Protein backbone atom coordinates (compact mmCIF):
# COMPACT_ATOMS: atom_id res chain seq x y z
CA UNK A 1 0.00 0.00 0.00
CA UNK A 2 0.95 3.66 -0.11
CA UNK A 3 2.15 5.79 2.74
CA UNK A 4 1.42 9.34 3.76
CA UNK A 5 4.00 11.43 5.58
CA UNK A 6 3.22 13.00 8.93
CA UNK A 7 5.61 15.02 11.02
CA UNK A 8 6.41 13.73 14.51
CA UNK A 9 4.30 10.63 14.00
CA UNK A 10 4.56 8.54 17.15
CA UNK A 11 5.64 11.48 19.24
CA UNK A 12 3.10 14.27 18.90
CA UNK A 13 -0.62 14.16 18.25
CA UNK A 14 -0.68 15.62 14.73
CA UNK A 15 -0.93 12.06 13.47
CA UNK A 16 -4.06 10.99 15.33
CA UNK A 17 -6.44 11.52 12.36
CA UNK A 18 -4.21 9.42 10.11
CA UNK A 19 -4.09 6.62 12.66
CA UNK A 20 -7.87 6.68 12.87
CA UNK A 21 -8.37 6.92 9.12
CA UNK A 22 -6.21 3.87 8.53
CA UNK A 23 -7.64 1.86 11.42
CA UNK A 24 -11.29 2.65 10.68
CA UNK A 25 -10.85 2.06 6.96
CA UNK A 26 -11.78 5.61 5.87
CA UNK A 27 -9.11 5.54 3.18
CA UNK A 28 -10.30 2.17 1.96
CA UNK A 29 -13.90 3.39 1.77
CA UNK A 30 -12.71 5.98 -0.75
CA UNK A 31 -10.71 3.45 -2.73
CA UNK A 32 -7.32 4.50 -1.37
CA UNK A 33 -4.75 1.98 -0.28
CA UNK A 34 -2.98 3.77 2.56
CA UNK A 35 -1.46 1.43 5.11
CA UNK A 36 1.35 3.32 6.76
CA UNK A 37 2.87 6.59 7.77
CA UNK A 38 6.32 7.98 7.06
CA UNK A 39 7.74 10.47 9.47
CA UNK A 40 10.80 12.23 10.79
CA UNK A 41 11.59 14.35 13.72
CA UNK A 42 10.07 17.35 12.04
CA UNK A 43 10.97 20.52 10.22
CA UNK A 44 12.52 20.40 6.80
CA UNK A 45 13.26 16.70 7.00
CA UNK A 46 9.58 15.82 6.97
CA UNK A 47 9.05 18.33 4.22
CA UNK A 48 11.76 16.70 2.16
CA UNK A 49 10.27 13.31 2.90
CA UNK A 50 6.97 14.47 1.46
CA UNK A 51 8.65 15.59 -1.71
CA UNK A 52 10.78 12.47 -2.02
CA UNK A 53 8.17 9.87 -1.23
CA UNK A 54 6.11 7.91 -3.75
CA UNK A 55 2.95 9.59 -2.58
CA UNK A 56 3.98 13.23 -2.28
CA UNK A 57 1.39 14.23 0.23
CA UNK A 58 1.69 14.80 3.96
CA UNK A 59 1.29 16.97 6.97
CA UNK A 60 4.22 19.17 7.91
CA UNK A 61 4.98 22.15 10.11
CA UNK A 62 3.87 25.38 8.47
CA UNK A 63 7.29 27.06 8.93
CA UNK A 64 8.91 24.17 7.08
CA UNK A 65 6.47 24.58 4.20
CA UNK A 66 7.15 28.31 4.07
CA UNK A 67 10.91 27.76 4.15
CA UNK A 68 10.67 25.24 1.35
CA UNK A 69 8.57 27.55 -0.75
CA UNK A 70 11.04 30.37 -0.17
CA UNK A 71 13.79 28.12 -1.53
CA UNK A 72 11.79 27.72 -4.70
CA UNK A 73 10.30 24.29 -4.03
CA UNK A 74 7.15 23.91 -6.06
CA UNK A 75 4.59 22.98 -3.41
CA UNK A 76 1.00 23.69 -2.54
CA UNK A 77 -0.60 23.91 0.88
CA UNK A 78 -3.89 22.09 0.46
CA UNK A 79 -5.41 22.01 3.92
CA UNK A 80 -4.87 22.99 7.53
CA UNK A 81 -3.65 20.27 9.85
CA UNK A 82 -3.49 21.54 13.40
CA UNK A 83 -4.82 25.06 13.55
CA UNK A 84 -3.73 25.95 17.04
CA UNK A 85 -0.66 25.93 19.23
CA UNK A 86 -2.89 26.13 22.27
CA UNK A 87 -1.93 22.68 23.54
CA UNK A 88 1.60 23.82 24.25
CA UNK A 89 2.17 24.81 27.84
CA UNK A 90 5.12 25.79 29.97
CA UNK A 91 5.51 23.76 33.11
CA UNK A 92 7.50 23.91 36.30
CA UNK A 93 8.08 21.28 38.99
CA UNK A 94 5.24 20.88 41.49
CA UNK A 95 7.42 22.16 44.29
CA UNK A 96 8.52 25.25 42.39
CA UNK A 97 7.59 28.71 43.75
CA UNK A 98 6.79 29.83 40.18
CA UNK A 99 3.06 30.41 39.82
CA UNK A 100 2.51 32.74 36.91
CA UNK A 101 4.16 34.25 33.87
CA UNK A 102 5.22 37.25 35.90
CA UNK A 103 7.28 34.97 38.15
CA UNK A 104 9.38 33.98 35.14
CA UNK A 105 10.84 37.48 34.74
CA UNK A 106 14.62 37.41 34.68
CA UNK A 107 14.70 33.62 35.03
CA UNK A 108 15.99 30.97 32.71
CA UNK A 109 13.22 29.45 30.63
CA UNK A 110 13.63 26.69 28.08
CA UNK A 111 12.43 26.42 24.51
CA UNK A 112 13.26 23.55 22.15
CA UNK A 113 15.61 24.97 19.54
CA UNK A 114 16.48 28.34 18.06
CA UNK A 115 13.82 29.72 15.69
CA UNK A 116 11.40 26.95 16.65
CA UNK A 117 7.70 27.36 17.35
CA UNK A 118 8.35 27.19 21.09
CA UNK A 119 10.88 30.02 20.95
CA UNK A 120 8.41 32.04 18.94
CA UNK A 121 5.61 31.39 21.42
CA UNK A 122 7.83 32.23 24.38
CA UNK A 123 8.84 35.53 22.83
CA UNK A 124 5.27 36.41 21.93
CA UNK A 125 3.98 35.59 25.42
CA UNK A 126 6.74 37.40 27.31
CA UNK A 127 6.41 40.42 24.99
CA UNK A 128 2.72 40.48 25.73
CA UNK A 129 3.44 40.55 29.46
CA UNK A 130 6.34 42.98 29.01
CA UNK A 131 8.79 40.84 30.86
CA UNK A 132 12.21 39.59 29.88
CA UNK A 133 13.29 36.00 30.36
CA UNK A 134 16.56 34.33 29.64
CA UNK A 135 15.63 31.84 26.93
CA UNK A 136 17.63 28.61 26.79
CA UNK A 137 17.61 26.24 23.85
CA UNK A 138 17.30 22.79 25.35
CA UNK A 139 17.30 20.79 22.12
CA UNK A 140 13.94 19.11 22.54
CA UNK A 141 10.97 18.54 24.80
CA UNK A 142 12.52 15.67 26.70
CA UNK A 143 15.83 17.46 27.06
CA UNK A 144 13.97 20.49 28.41
CA UNK A 145 12.31 18.38 31.09
CA UNK A 146 15.62 16.85 32.04
CA UNK A 147 17.23 20.25 32.14
CA UNK A 148 14.51 21.58 34.40
CA UNK A 149 14.76 18.59 36.70
CA UNK A 150 18.44 19.43 37.08
CA UNK A 151 17.65 23.05 37.88
CA UNK A 152 19.05 24.44 34.63
CA UNK A 153 15.79 26.29 33.88
CA UNK A 154 12.70 27.10 35.92
CA UNK A 155 10.18 26.27 33.22
CA UNK A 156 10.08 24.30 30.01
CA UNK A 157 7.58 23.79 27.19
CA UNK A 158 5.67 20.54 26.96
CA UNK A 159 2.68 19.16 25.11
CA UNK A 160 0.66 16.02 24.79
CA UNK A 161 1.21 13.17 24.93
CA UNK A 162 4.42 13.88 26.88
CA UNK A 163 2.47 16.17 29.17
CA UNK A 164 0.01 13.40 29.95
CA UNK A 165 2.90 11.32 31.27
CA UNK A 166 4.20 14.05 33.56
CA UNK A 167 0.98 15.58 34.80
CA UNK A 168 1.47 14.40 38.35
CA UNK A 169 5.03 15.64 38.69
CA UNK A 170 4.81 19.00 36.96
CA UNK A 171 2.40 21.89 37.06
CA UNK A 172 1.51 24.41 34.33
CA UNK A 173 2.85 27.95 34.44
CA UNK A 174 0.80 29.04 31.46
CA UNK A 175 -1.02 27.54 28.50
CA UNK A 176 -0.56 29.07 25.06
CA UNK A 177 -4.31 28.80 24.47
CA UNK A 178 -4.86 31.28 27.33
CA UNK A 179 -2.30 33.76 26.09
CA UNK A 180 -2.23 33.86 22.31
CA UNK A 181 -4.70 33.71 19.45
CA UNK A 182 -4.84 30.63 17.20
CA UNK A 183 -1.67 29.84 15.29
CA UNK A 184 -1.53 27.27 12.51
CA UNK A 185 1.07 24.65 13.39
CA UNK A 186 0.78 22.12 10.59
CA UNK A 187 -0.60 22.03 7.09
CA UNK A 188 -1.21 19.43 4.44
CA UNK A 189 1.15 19.84 1.51
CA UNK A 190 1.75 18.28 -1.86
CA UNK A 191 3.62 19.07 -5.01
CA UNK A 192 1.99 21.17 -7.66
CA UNK A 193 2.58 18.40 -10.13
CA UNK A 194 0.80 15.84 -7.99
CA UNK A 195 -2.12 18.22 -7.41
CA UNK A 196 -2.44 18.77 -11.13
CA UNK A 197 -2.19 15.11 -12.10
CA UNK A 198 -4.21 13.55 -9.27
CA UNK A 199 -6.83 16.09 -8.12
CA UNK A 200 -9.32 13.37 -7.23
CA UNK A 201 -6.90 11.34 -5.21
CA UNK A 202 -5.90 14.45 -3.31
CA UNK A 203 -9.52 15.28 -2.59
CA UNK A 204 -10.06 11.76 -1.26
CA UNK A 205 -7.00 11.95 0.97
CA UNK A 206 -8.27 15.14 2.50
CA UNK A 207 -11.80 13.83 2.83
CA UNK A 208 -10.68 10.70 4.64
CA UNK A 209 -8.71 12.79 7.10
CA UNK A 210 -11.71 15.07 7.61
CA UNK A 211 -13.87 12.08 8.37
CA UNK A 212 -11.28 10.84 10.88
CA UNK A 213 -11.19 14.22 12.63
CA UNK A 214 -14.95 14.12 12.96
CA UNK A 215 -14.71 10.59 14.33
CA UNK A 216 -12.18 11.67 16.98
CA UNK A 217 -14.48 14.42 18.19
CA UNK A 218 -17.43 12.01 18.21
CA UNK A 219 -15.70 9.01 19.78
CA UNK A 220 -12.72 10.32 21.79
CA UNK A 221 -12.43 7.13 23.80
CA UNK A 222 -12.16 4.83 20.81
CA UNK A 223 -9.85 7.30 19.02
CA UNK A 224 -7.56 7.34 22.05
CA UNK A 225 -7.37 3.56 22.00
CA UNK A 226 -6.46 3.63 18.30
CA UNK A 227 -3.73 6.22 18.90
CA UNK A 228 -2.42 4.27 21.89
CA UNK A 229 -1.97 1.23 19.67
CA UNK A 230 -0.51 3.15 16.74
CA UNK A 231 1.90 5.11 18.92
CA UNK A 232 2.62 2.31 21.35
CA UNK A 233 1.48 4.54 24.18
CA UNK A 234 0.06 3.79 27.57
CA UNK A 235 -3.76 3.68 27.18
CA UNK A 236 -4.49 6.06 30.06
CA UNK A 237 -1.91 8.55 28.82
CA UNK A 238 -3.43 8.50 25.35
CA UNK A 239 -6.92 8.93 26.73
CA UNK A 240 -5.99 11.96 28.80
CA UNK A 241 -4.11 13.52 25.90
CA UNK A 242 -6.92 12.98 23.42
CA UNK A 243 -9.54 14.28 25.82
CA UNK A 244 -7.63 17.45 26.37
CA UNK A 245 -7.00 18.00 22.66
CA UNK A 246 -10.61 17.30 21.80
CA UNK A 247 -11.63 19.99 24.24
CA UNK A 248 -9.23 22.35 22.51
CA UNK A 249 -10.57 21.36 19.07
CA UNK A 250 -6.95 20.74 18.21
CA UNK A 251 -7.37 18.98 14.87
CA UNK A 252 -8.69 21.13 12.06
CA UNK A 253 -11.10 19.65 9.55
CA UNK A 254 -8.84 21.19 6.93
CA UNK A 255 -10.40 24.57 6.27
CA UNK A 256 -8.10 27.55 6.11
CA UNK A 257 -8.08 30.25 8.81
CA UNK A 258 -6.35 33.25 7.27
CA UNK A 259 -5.78 35.01 10.61
CA UNK A 260 -4.25 31.92 12.23
CA UNK A 261 -1.90 31.54 9.29
CA UNK A 262 -0.90 35.20 9.50
CA UNK A 263 -0.20 34.75 13.20
CA UNK A 264 2.36 32.10 12.36
CA UNK A 265 3.92 34.36 9.71
CA UNK A 266 4.14 37.16 12.25
CA UNK A 267 5.79 34.87 14.74
CA UNK A 268 8.30 33.76 12.16
CA UNK A 269 9.20 37.36 11.53
CA UNK A 270 9.69 37.90 15.25
CA UNK A 271 12.25 35.11 15.49
CA UNK A 272 13.85 36.29 12.27
CA UNK A 273 12.97 33.24 10.26
CA UNK A 274 11.43 35.23 7.43
CA UNK A 275 11.91 38.86 6.57
CA UNK A 276 8.53 39.94 5.24
CA UNK A 277 4.86 38.94 5.06
CA UNK A 278 3.95 35.74 3.24
CA UNK A 279 2.09 35.85 -0.03
CA UNK A 280 -0.39 33.06 0.74
CA UNK A 281 -2.05 33.24 -2.64
CA UNK A 282 1.02 31.67 -4.22
CA UNK A 283 1.14 28.93 -1.62
CA UNK A 284 -2.34 27.98 -0.62
CA UNK A 285 -4.71 26.05 -2.84
CA UNK A 286 -8.08 25.48 -1.16
CA UNK A 287 -9.67 23.89 -4.18
CA UNK A 288 -9.31 20.30 -2.91
CA UNK A 289 -11.15 20.74 0.37
Amino acid at each position, binding site marked *: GEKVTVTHWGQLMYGAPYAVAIEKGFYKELGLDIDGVLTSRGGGTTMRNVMASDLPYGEVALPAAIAAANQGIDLAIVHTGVGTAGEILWVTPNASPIKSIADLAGKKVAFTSPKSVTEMLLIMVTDKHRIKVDG*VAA*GGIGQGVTLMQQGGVVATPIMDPVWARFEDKLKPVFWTKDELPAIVQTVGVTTRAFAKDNPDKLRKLIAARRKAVAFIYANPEEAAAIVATAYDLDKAVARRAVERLVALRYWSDGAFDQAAMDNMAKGLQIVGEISGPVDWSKLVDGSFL
Partner: protein
Amino acid sequence: MSRAGLVRTAIVVAAVAALELAARGGLLRAGVAVPPSEVAAKLWSILRAGDANADLVETLGNVALACGLALVAGFSLGAVVHGLPRLRRALDPFLASYYALPFFAFYPVLIVVLGIGRLPIVAIGFMFAVVAMMVATLNGFDRIPRALPRTARVWRMGPVRTALKIKLPSAAPHLFTGIKLAVAYAFIGVIAAEFIMATSGLGYAIAYAFNNYDNRTMYALMLLLLGIVVVVNGVLHGAEQRLLARRRAR
Protein backbone atom coordinates in the same frame (compact mmCIF):
# COMPACT_ATOMS: atom_id res chain seq x y z
CA MET B 1 54.96 18.09 -4.95
CA SER B 2 55.52 14.37 -5.33
CA ARG B 3 54.19 12.51 -8.34
CA ALA B 4 51.54 10.90 -6.16
CA GLY B 5 50.56 14.32 -4.86
CA LEU B 6 50.18 15.62 -8.39
CA VAL B 7 48.03 12.70 -9.47
CA ARG B 8 45.94 13.05 -6.33
CA THR B 9 45.39 16.74 -6.97
CA ALA B 10 44.46 15.98 -10.53
CA ILE B 11 41.90 13.41 -9.40
CA VAL B 12 40.32 15.80 -6.94
CA VAL B 13 40.23 18.60 -9.49
CA ALA B 14 38.69 16.28 -12.07
CA ALA B 15 36.04 15.14 -9.62
CA VAL B 16 35.14 18.71 -8.75
CA ALA B 17 35.01 19.64 -12.41
CA ALA B 18 32.80 16.67 -13.19
CA LEU B 19 30.45 17.68 -10.40
CA GLU B 20 30.40 21.21 -11.70
CA LEU B 21 29.55 20.07 -15.21
CA ALA B 22 26.93 17.61 -14.01
CA ALA B 23 25.26 20.21 -11.84
CA ARG B 24 25.35 22.85 -14.54
CA GLY B 25 24.32 20.52 -17.29
CA GLY B 26 21.25 19.50 -15.32
CA LEU B 27 22.43 15.90 -15.04
CA LEU B 28 21.64 15.97 -11.34
CA ARG B 29 18.34 16.97 -9.84
CA ALA B 30 18.14 20.71 -9.33
CA GLY B 31 18.12 21.54 -5.67
CA VAL B 32 20.14 18.44 -4.92
CA ALA B 33 23.35 19.41 -6.58
CA VAL B 34 24.71 22.90 -6.49
CA PRO B 35 27.71 23.58 -8.73
CA PRO B 36 30.91 23.59 -6.61
CA SER B 37 31.78 27.06 -7.88
CA GLU B 38 28.54 28.43 -6.45
CA VAL B 39 29.12 26.58 -3.18
CA ALA B 40 32.57 28.13 -2.95
CA ALA B 41 31.15 31.55 -3.71
CA LYS B 42 28.52 31.09 -1.05
CA LEU B 43 31.15 29.99 1.46
CA TRP B 44 33.20 33.04 0.61
CA SER B 45 30.25 35.32 1.25
CA ILE B 46 29.42 33.54 4.51
CA LEU B 47 33.00 33.89 5.68
CA ARG B 48 33.19 37.53 4.64
CA ALA B 49 29.95 38.38 6.37
CA GLY B 50 31.08 36.42 9.40
CA ASP B 51 27.75 34.60 9.58
CA ALA B 52 29.32 31.32 10.59
CA ASN B 53 31.99 32.71 12.89
CA ALA B 54 30.19 32.12 16.15
CA ASP B 55 29.29 28.56 15.21
CA LEU B 56 32.77 27.90 13.91
CA VAL B 57 34.45 29.21 17.04
CA GLU B 58 32.11 27.22 19.20
CA THR B 59 32.65 24.00 17.29
CA LEU B 60 36.41 24.37 17.15
CA GLY B 61 36.42 25.17 20.84
CA ASN B 62 34.36 22.07 21.59
CA VAL B 63 36.64 19.91 19.48
CA ALA B 64 39.76 21.34 21.07
CA LEU B 65 38.41 20.81 24.55
CA ALA B 66 37.14 17.29 23.84
CA CYS B 67 40.36 16.38 22.14
CA GLY B 68 42.64 17.85 24.80
CA LEU B 69 40.82 16.05 27.57
CA ALA B 70 40.75 12.82 25.59
CA LEU B 71 44.50 12.93 24.94
CA VAL B 72 45.41 13.42 28.57
CA ALA B 73 42.85 10.96 29.90
CA GLY B 74 43.48 8.41 27.16
CA PHE B 75 47.23 8.46 27.71
CA SER B 76 46.92 8.25 31.49
CA LEU B 77 44.37 5.45 31.34
CA GLY B 78 46.44 3.61 28.78
CA ALA B 79 49.59 3.92 30.83
CA VAL B 80 47.86 2.74 34.00
CA VAL B 81 46.01 -0.14 32.36
CA HIS B 82 49.20 -1.24 30.64
CA GLY B 83 50.73 -1.78 34.04
CA LEU B 84 47.81 -3.98 35.09
CA PRO B 85 47.70 -6.88 32.63
CA ARG B 86 44.76 -8.57 34.32
CA LEU B 87 42.57 -5.46 34.13
CA ARG B 88 43.68 -5.02 30.59
CA ARG B 89 42.65 -8.49 29.49
CA ALA B 90 39.31 -8.01 31.21
CA LEU B 91 38.76 -4.72 29.41
CA ASP B 92 39.76 -5.98 25.97
CA PRO B 93 36.33 -7.07 24.68
CA PHE B 94 34.79 -3.79 25.78
CA LEU B 95 37.47 -1.66 24.18
CA ALA B 96 37.12 -3.61 20.96
CA SER B 97 33.38 -3.06 20.61
CA TYR B 98 33.32 0.40 22.08
CA TYR B 99 32.81 2.16 18.79
CA ALA B 100 29.60 0.32 17.98
CA LEU B 101 27.74 2.11 20.77
CA PRO B 102 25.42 4.95 19.72
CA PHE B 103 26.87 7.60 22.01
CA PHE B 104 24.34 10.23 21.00
CA ALA B 105 21.71 8.36 22.90
CA PHE B 106 23.60 9.24 26.04
CA TYR B 107 22.96 12.89 25.39
CA PRO B 108 19.95 13.15 27.72
CA VAL B 109 21.95 11.38 30.40
CA LEU B 110 24.84 13.72 29.83
CA ILE B 111 22.58 16.71 30.26
CA VAL B 112 21.70 15.35 33.66
CA VAL B 113 25.31 15.09 34.64
CA LEU B 114 26.74 18.11 32.87
CA GLY B 115 23.84 20.47 32.32
CA ILE B 116 22.84 22.03 29.05
CA GLY B 117 25.25 23.82 26.77
CA ARG B 118 28.62 22.87 25.44
CA LEU B 119 29.64 20.36 28.07
CA PRO B 120 27.47 17.44 26.94
CA ILE B 121 28.64 18.04 23.38
CA VAL B 122 32.25 18.10 24.52
CA ALA B 123 31.56 14.96 26.52
CA ILE B 124 30.36 13.11 23.42
CA GLY B 125 33.44 14.23 21.50
CA PHE B 126 35.54 13.13 24.45
CA MET B 127 33.85 9.73 24.65
CA PHE B 128 34.52 9.24 20.95
CA ALA B 129 38.16 10.21 21.19
CA VAL B 130 39.37 8.89 24.51
CA VAL B 131 39.32 5.19 23.73
CA ALA B 132 41.23 5.67 20.49
CA MET B 133 43.98 7.40 22.45
CA MET B 134 43.89 4.79 25.16
CA VAL B 135 44.21 1.91 22.71
CA ALA B 136 47.03 3.68 20.88
CA THR B 137 48.84 4.18 24.17
CA LEU B 138 48.46 0.51 25.02
CA ASN B 139 49.76 -0.44 21.58
CA GLY B 140 52.66 1.95 21.88
CA PHE B 141 53.67 0.65 25.28
CA ASP B 142 53.40 -2.91 24.00
CA ARG B 143 55.87 -2.16 21.29
CA ILE B 144 58.58 -0.64 23.42
CA PRO B 145 61.55 -2.91 22.79
CA ARG B 146 62.25 -4.90 25.93
CA ALA B 147 65.87 -3.88 25.85
CA LEU B 148 65.06 -0.21 26.46
CA PRO B 149 63.60 -0.41 29.95
CA ARG B 150 66.22 -3.00 30.74
CA THR B 151 68.89 -0.54 29.73
CA ALA B 152 67.31 1.90 32.16
CA ARG B 153 67.66 -0.69 34.89
CA VAL B 154 71.31 -1.19 34.11
CA TRP B 155 71.71 2.56 34.65
CA ARG B 156 69.69 2.22 37.85
CA MET B 157 66.95 4.66 36.81
CA GLY B 158 63.72 4.81 38.84
CA PRO B 159 60.30 3.81 37.44
CA VAL B 160 59.04 7.37 36.94
CA ARG B 161 62.17 8.53 35.14
CA THR B 162 62.02 5.37 33.05
CA ALA B 163 58.42 6.07 32.12
CA LEU B 164 59.08 9.67 31.19
CA LYS B 165 62.50 9.50 29.58
CA ILE B 166 62.41 6.05 28.00
CA LYS B 167 58.88 4.72 27.58
CA LEU B 168 57.16 7.92 26.50
CA PRO B 169 59.59 8.85 23.72
CA SER B 170 59.87 5.24 22.64
CA ALA B 171 56.11 4.94 22.25
CA ALA B 172 55.82 8.37 20.62
CA PRO B 173 55.10 7.21 17.06
CA HIS B 174 52.15 5.14 18.26
CA LEU B 175 51.00 7.93 20.51
CA PHE B 176 50.94 10.13 17.47
CA THR B 177 48.66 7.70 15.69
CA GLY B 178 46.45 7.99 18.74
CA ILE B 179 46.53 11.76 18.54
CA LYS B 180 45.52 11.72 14.90
CA LEU B 181 42.64 9.37 15.58
CA ALA B 182 41.58 11.29 18.65
CA VAL B 183 41.41 14.54 16.69
CA ALA B 184 39.37 12.91 13.94
CA TYR B 185 37.04 11.21 16.41
CA ALA B 186 36.60 14.34 18.47
CA PHE B 187 35.53 16.10 15.27
CA ILE B 188 33.14 13.33 14.34
CA GLY B 189 31.63 13.18 17.81
CA VAL B 190 31.23 16.91 18.30
CA ILE B 191 29.77 17.54 14.86
CA ALA B 192 27.40 14.60 15.13
CA ALA B 193 26.20 15.67 18.56
CA GLU B 194 25.69 19.22 17.32
CA PHE B 195 23.89 17.92 14.28
CA ILE B 196 21.50 15.72 16.18
CA MET B 197 21.04 17.38 19.50
CA ALA B 198 22.50 20.79 19.88
CA THR B 199 21.17 24.23 19.23
CA SER B 200 24.38 25.86 18.07
CA GLY B 201 27.68 25.05 16.43
CA LEU B 202 28.66 24.14 12.91
CA GLY B 203 26.89 20.78 13.01
CA TYR B 204 23.69 22.49 14.07
CA ALA B 205 24.11 25.14 11.40
CA ILE B 206 24.33 22.45 8.74
CA ALA B 207 21.25 20.68 10.08
CA TYR B 208 19.47 24.00 10.26
CA ALA B 209 20.28 24.91 6.70
CA PHE B 210 19.12 21.47 5.66
CA ASN B 211 15.84 21.90 7.49
CA ASN B 212 15.30 25.22 5.80
CA TYR B 213 15.94 23.93 2.35
CA ASP B 214 18.92 26.22 2.18
CA ASN B 215 21.08 23.79 0.22
CA ARG B 216 23.54 26.43 -0.83
CA THR B 217 24.38 27.34 2.74
CA MET B 218 24.36 23.70 3.72
CA TYR B 219 26.88 22.73 1.06
CA ALA B 220 28.96 25.79 1.82
CA LEU B 221 29.18 24.84 5.48
CA MET B 222 29.97 21.25 4.58
CA LEU B 223 32.74 22.53 2.35
CA LEU B 224 34.02 24.61 5.22
CA LEU B 225 34.04 21.55 7.46
CA LEU B 226 35.76 19.47 4.82
CA GLY B 227 38.37 22.19 4.44
CA ILE B 228 38.99 22.24 8.17
CA VAL B 229 39.31 18.46 8.35
CA VAL B 230 41.72 18.36 5.42
CA VAL B 231 43.84 21.17 6.84
CA VAL B 232 43.93 19.64 10.31
CA ASN B 233 44.84 16.27 8.82
CA GLY B 234 47.52 17.89 6.76
CA VAL B 235 49.03 19.70 9.72
CA LEU B 236 49.02 16.55 11.83
CA HIS B 237 50.50 14.54 9.00
CA GLY B 238 53.25 17.11 8.58
CA ALA B 239 53.99 17.15 12.30
CA GLU B 240 54.13 13.38 12.34
CA GLN B 241 56.49 13.29 9.39
CA ARG B 242 58.78 15.73 11.15
CA LEU B 243 58.64 13.70 14.33
CA LEU B 244 59.37 10.49 12.50
CA ALA B 245 61.85 11.85 9.97
CA ARG B 246 64.80 11.39 12.26
CA ARG B 247 63.65 7.96 13.22
CA ARG B 248 63.57 6.64 9.72
CA ALA B 249 66.36 5.04 7.86
CA ARG B 250 68.12 7.04 5.20
